[in-house]
């Protein structure tokens, strides 16, 4: 590094505009949301700044406890399915020549960017009686008459997996594509089948990435706010759906905010777990 005084600063003045924008339109709204969660609801209005713990007390009831548990369980299941399909898929994808990877990456990005409204609409069409896949099964003689597969838990699971799988693959992609290709090749030269090499050499080498990706996809699935509503029955509604419902249709913003604070805490807890895994990984690598 040169000892000369920097003539024109160190570029830190550039931080002022983004800092102000993020402060005013992310930190302030976020803080306001936390404040509102302690405020009293006004019928037909938004809220009144009278401090109360009622919104949290209501949330801590058995009914909402069950919803929290269901949301966590559903998201964990979605993340697990994505991991089981996504890890071998990303591995296979990363071993393709780079040129052949590109169309897959474009397709994954296109599906990932799809509106939840569009995903919900297309899966409910795919699983419907009039336009659904059952018509195909009838035509093939596998079913007697067309049937609807939605609303159901399976439909919710399918839709959310569809939404999260591209995300899972793209989160995996850097670790898999940076993996030394000689690792798998060495195992196969020594006589392991590709599947065995994947299970016994590749996966253990990427333990940290697997754990981190599971958590990241879990949080992603927790954020799904429409699919449980569009593809499931009311008992399949998750915390995100309920927050939207309370905020918009029941116009009870304080209660919605209290649930949102819970959702943030759950997500942050999980993300810091990921950071912990990450730190441990770099330590063991050092």
């Amino acid at each position, binding site marked *: 590094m040169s000892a000369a005084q920097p003539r024109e600063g160190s570029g*830190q003045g550039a931080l002022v505009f983004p800092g102000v924008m993020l402060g005013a339109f992310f930190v302030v*709204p976020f803080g306001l949301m936390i404040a509102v969660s302690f405020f009293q609801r006004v019928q037909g209005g938004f809220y009144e700044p009278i401090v109360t713990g009622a919104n949290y007390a209501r949330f801590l009831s058995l009914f909402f406890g069950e919803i929290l548990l269901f949301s966590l369980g559903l998201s964990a299941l979605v993340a697990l399915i994505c991991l089981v399909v996504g890890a071998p898929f990303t591995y*296979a994808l990363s071993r393709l020549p780079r040129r052949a990877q590109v169309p897959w990456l474009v397709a994954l990005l296109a599906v990932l960017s799809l509106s939840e409204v*569009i995903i919900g609409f297309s899966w409910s069409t795919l699983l419907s009686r009039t336009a659904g896949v059952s018509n195909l099964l009838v035509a093939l003689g596998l079913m007697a008459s067309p049937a609807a597969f939605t609303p159901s838990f399976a439909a919710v699971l399918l839709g959310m997996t569809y939404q999260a799988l591209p995300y899972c693959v793209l989160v995996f992609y850097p670790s898999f594509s940076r993996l030394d290709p000689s690792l798998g090749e060495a195992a196969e030269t020594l006589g392991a089948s590709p599947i065995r090499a994947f299970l016994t050499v590749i996966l253990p080498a990427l333990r940290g990435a697997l754990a981190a990706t599971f958590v990241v996809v879990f949080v992603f699935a927790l*954020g799904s706010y429409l699919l449980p509503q569009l593809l499931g029955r009311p008992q399949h509604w998750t915390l995100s759906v309920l927050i939207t419902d309370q905020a918009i249709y029941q116009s009870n913003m304080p209660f919605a905010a209290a649930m*949102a604070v819970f959702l943030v805490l759950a997500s942050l807890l999980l993300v810091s777990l990921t950071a912990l895994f990450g730190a441990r990984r770099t330590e063991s690598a050092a």
Partner: protein
Amino acid sequence: MSRLFFALVGLFLAAPVAIIAGVSLNAQQSLVFPPKGLSLRWYGAIFTDADWRAALLTSVSIAALAAALAVLIALPIAYALWRRTTVAGRVVQLLGISPFVLPPVITALGALAFWSTVGFYGSPFTVVVSHAIFFTSLPLVTLTLGFSSIDREIVEAARTMGADERAVRRTIVAPMIRPYLVSGFAFAFVLSLNEYIIAYMTVGFTMETVPIKIFNALRYGYTPVMASISVLFVGLAALIFGLVARFGDLPKLLGAWERR
């Protein structure tokens, strides 16, 4: 074996899109598959039906403005961090990434509480600002990658030859990060186009974006335009990401090492 695996995943990804593509070709106003009679009239209707055309125009305008603002917020952060890693820089970077990592309802609800409290609830610019904040992380990630790809020695050489910071920015930084800037904009644009919940909680009662209009159509009456415009959105996303891949290095952008 691996070919079968690719085919199955491809089928899974393509199936819902294939169904709505089929539904969108129905000659009559009905959602059946396989389609009864083939017609492209529902694609024409996106542009001839005043409501759908307005929704499309609204969505595209919001997405273009929000993506531009997201880039304007992300660029200085990435630049400052490239010049020197400071605590302030790290904090602002964390603030830029956080909204996207947290569940989207959080940003949406925060925006609803904020805009209604300051009295701008329902104004068109609120969704632009809130989308820009939510999607800042995308150009931030691509631009950070862009800056890290600039060889420090080139910058040192330029300074030795007497270039000041402005000359360095103009002759080295700008051309090297341009592709990352464009792809960051593209990511934010496509995601803003498709975003539903933040748009709904900011301007849902005064304006209709395409996702909001599809959602309303789902509740209050089907029209095959929902299918045709969904197919158009899938095609648009594929086209834009395809262009990013055509003019940039998509695997590198998504985190693979430099081409060996």
